[in-house]
């Protein structure tokens, strides 16, 4: 099967620090892959390069056949990559529903005058966004909270809302950056089921950064391990768990 996303020699330096060094990675449509590594290994930096936030110092990123390194975040989003953030970035003053609707904004085919004059096209668009957002809130189990402002949500729900919002952009690939951080065991269990359903029911390919080993090992089919910006291992969860380099990186790192 052809790759959905493929990076070759992806490298980024911040001054003297090489945060990610020669990162090669492939994910095919429908996969659920993990990206793990100790704190500061460069995982989030990889996401930032995939989504156009950081410009790589060297290397390429191809998505769906097109080269995307050098494209802006909005252009990358338009091609079908979405993500969540390790440090949650919701639109705090918008409601939960409106946050999710913002994800659907990019598909809007109306112009400003439709909205100023309230043409039928405006109402259709609002309805479309509301339906889409509401369905995804339901999917994430947040429909009861639709009317709250985002800042009123408890932590675990905030992470779920970020996922709903990202899904509303109708991505082909969703990159989740530590979605379980700050969740309790129960919530983590629910989340792992949800992540699998995102792939199985919504057909979205998932790339997951996560520190919770039980969660990662439980749902990922393939895992790549970063340490100090370098890939030190890749393989199935079982292979990773028994890889001495990985064990050392985690024991040495923490």
């Amino acid at each position, binding site marked *: 099967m052809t790759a959905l996303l493929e990076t070759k020699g992806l490298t980024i330096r911040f001054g003297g620090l090489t945060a990610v060094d020669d990162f090669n990675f492939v994910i095919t449509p429908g996969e659920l892959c993990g990206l793990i590594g100790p704190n500061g290994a460069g995982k989030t930096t990889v996401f930032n390069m995939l989504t156009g*936030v950081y410009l790589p110092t060297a290397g390429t990123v191809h998505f769906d056949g097109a080269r995307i390194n050098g494209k802006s975040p909005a252009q990358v989003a338009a091609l079908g990559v979405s*993500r969540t953030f390790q440090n949650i970035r919701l639109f705090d*003053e918008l409601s939960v529903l409106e946050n999710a609707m*913002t994800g659907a*904004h*990019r598909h809007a085919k109306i112009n400003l005058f439709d*909205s100023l*004059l309230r043409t039928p096209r405006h109402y259709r668009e609002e309805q479309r966004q509301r339906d889409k957002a509401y369905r995804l809130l339901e999917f994430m189990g947040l429909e009861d909270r639709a009317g709250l402002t985002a800042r009123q949500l408890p932590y675990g729900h905030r992470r779920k809302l970020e996922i709903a919002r*990202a899904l509303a952009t109708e991505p082909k690939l969703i990159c989740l950056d530590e979605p379980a951080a700050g969740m309790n065991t129960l919530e983590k269990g629910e989340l792992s089921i949800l992540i699998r359903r995102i792939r199985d029911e919504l057909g979205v390919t998932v790339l997951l950064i996560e520190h919770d080993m039980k969660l990662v090992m439980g749902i990922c089919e393939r895992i790549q391990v970063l340490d100090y910006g370098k890939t030190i291992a890749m393989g199935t969860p079982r292979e990773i768990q028994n890889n001495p380099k990985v064990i050392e990186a985690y024991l040495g790192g923490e």
Partner: protein
Amino acid sequence: MLRTGAVLVAGIIGAVVLNAVLAEFIDDYVVRVINLCGVAIVLAVSLNVINGLCGQFSLGHAGFMAIGAYVCSLFTTTQRYYDAASAQYVSEPSLAARMAEMFGADLAAAGSEQLQSIAAWGFLPGLIAGGVVSALAGLVVGIPALRLRGDYLAIATLGFGEIVRVVITNIPQIGGATGLPGLPPLANTSWIFAVCVVCIVFSVNLQRSTFGRALIAIRENELAAEIMGVRIARMKVMAFIYGAFFAGVAGGLLAHLLQTISPATFNFMKSIEVVVMLVLGGLGSLTGAVVGAIVLTVLPEALRDVEREVNLPGIRMVVYALVLILLMIFRPQGIFGQRELSLKLLRRVIPGGRK
């Protein structure tokens, strides 16, 4: 669309009626304050789209107003100026007069009443043209503003306003530094109220649309908005164009309310004043902008009476400043914060009200 149309039509009919009623029953001075409030509301509500919704701190509103005011005056007012080359005073008829001439009116023979009605016909096209030219300026300011943030954007937009002022000062044909006297008093309560209604209705519609949410998303978290596929540049420029349009129209109204304009009318204090209205009402709240505009227009006038009463000239500005300082200490988010004044909110606030 029906509702928006109905509100607009009702508003405009209301505007005409209101004017008649006010002129009949209310003292001229009060009418004047009401008119000033109306202009302030248009200014504050339009700036709220740039500063409040989109979170781009602009201090350029005076510049947009000036453009609107001067463009509008070209339509309604005969421009008289001293031409240095021929060493004599030259008189340029207004665009409205020229149009009338093209349609066969004989201006030389026309009585003053007829001239006035010709000028009046130039008002609406003048307001619209003022808004459009100002919106173009908004586009020109909005694009470089994309590269700037926070304080830098504030300074750049302030600079824009000053540039507009300096440019006008150096065009003798439109009065230069001395300005333009003798604008016809066309901006009555009807016009002002009608523009207010249009501006508020459009701004509410904007705020409650996918574009409004995109603007707020940019304000709340620009990176996340961009990752969600919001086209940041386009939305920011749109906010500037929208805000500048109504600032231009408000400038045209103010010019024909004051009847005299000069570059000094549109100095940076004017921009600051509008920003203070927004901050007072609560940045990002449309109803806050309306309330802020009214309070900051009425307060100095009310204090004028107090000043006369206690016989302490100048105390007015001290009290005014004190009110603002106290507000910033005790309610830095403004009267409404980012909330809107609604019946629901009222019910919650009024004791004994339903929850």
